[in-house]
């Protein structure tokens, strides 16, 4: 199973759900398959999940997804405890665990998960109950479908290979630059009056 296949499954379920993606190759399939103004691309590690957590806490009526890498999450794992503490029911954290810093340089540097670290175990130890590891595409699809249908918080660890590394269009532009994405996201969020009956007017 590779990252692209799982992202295709996520894109099919997304339907405008707010989404924060970490740095690297996962950005391009989401941009190609399921871009939406409610997307923050290339969020610096380890702030993917904390940003998504803030969105989820500020918008409890809406499901929110964080798309993480194992290296990024391991740079700031304390956020799993914060999520568990507040039992943030509308948050899904999808972690691509390929055991490497695949986007970085040669892609040969391994993460701790290649040496025994268990991200699902970290999540459960932090207090997350809806935590699972999926290693094939049918299991990944089933886990994502449950996460989009049932209250969370959800931690889905997708064990993926590195076969997508040379397929991603690294030089292709994303729909928005980092310096535009925050403005685009916020305007789109504030333009949904049914969910924000008392929201301030967008500037």
């Amino acid at each position, binding site marked *: 199973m590779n990252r692209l296949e799982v992202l295709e499954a996520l894109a099919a379920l997304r339907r405008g759900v707010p989404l924060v993606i970490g740095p690297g190759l996962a950005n391009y399939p989401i941009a190609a398959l399921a871009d939406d103004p409610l997307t923050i691309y290339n969020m*610096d590690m380890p702030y993917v999940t904390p940003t998504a957590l*803030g*969105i989820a*806490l500020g*918008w409890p009526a809406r499901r929110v997804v964080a798309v993480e890498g194992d290296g990024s999450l391991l740079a700031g794992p*304390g956020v799993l405890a*914060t999520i568990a503490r507040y039992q943030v029911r509308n948050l899904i954290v999808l972690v691509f665990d390929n055991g490497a810093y695949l986007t970085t340089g040669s892609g040969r540097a391994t993460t701790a998960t290649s040496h025994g670290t268990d991200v699902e175990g970290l999540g459960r130890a932090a207090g997350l109950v809806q935590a699972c590891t999926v290693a094939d595409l049918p299991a990944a699809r089933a886990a994502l479908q449950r996460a989009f249908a049932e209250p969370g918080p959800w931690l889905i660890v997708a064990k993926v290979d590195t076969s997508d590394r040379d397929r991603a269009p690294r030089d292709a532009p994303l729909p928005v630059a980092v310096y535009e994405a925050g403005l685009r996201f*916020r305007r789109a969020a504030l333009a949904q009056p049914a969910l924000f009956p008392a929201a301030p007017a967008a500037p």
Partner: protein
Amino acid sequence: MAAQPSAPRPPAPGPRYRSEALEAFDDGFRAAGIDFAVFLPDSLLDGIEQALLARGEIPCYQCSREDEGIAMAMGAFLVGKRPVALMEGSGIGLSALILARGIVQRTPTLIVAGHSSTLGERYDYHGATRLVAEPVLRALDIPCHVLADVGQIRTAVVQAQHTVEGQRIPVALLVPPFVIREA
């Protein structure tokens, strides 16, 4: 005669906070329209944080690390909230990258941080805390204001939030010990 086990000692009394300072922060947050708070506990700001939690009017969340908290605040801003992040000044030392990201992507937050480089820093164990916050803020061109008097607090909070919203940049208020704690 066998020695009797000693009775459990009551917890040591904590710091005493100036009630007028706590009220001024509370008043300032409400006047500024703050509607989301995130914090990592700090001995100088604990009185403010506990008051926020007790009052319950502003959703208030405790993070695991200060830079995580700033990212949470920025996420809340993305969905229309007016956040404040409270922390010890050392947390600004951990937060340079997320603060920079907030500047680039225009997702600001008001920051209230305990300690400053100059006023009232008696203790050696605050040496690194004292050193780190203002240089990080200056390096990123993030405005910061050191509160010097209780009478400034409400106005500073409201006016700092005006800058956060008008300029879409983070703004920090630094709180020296003598402003918030009783002598």
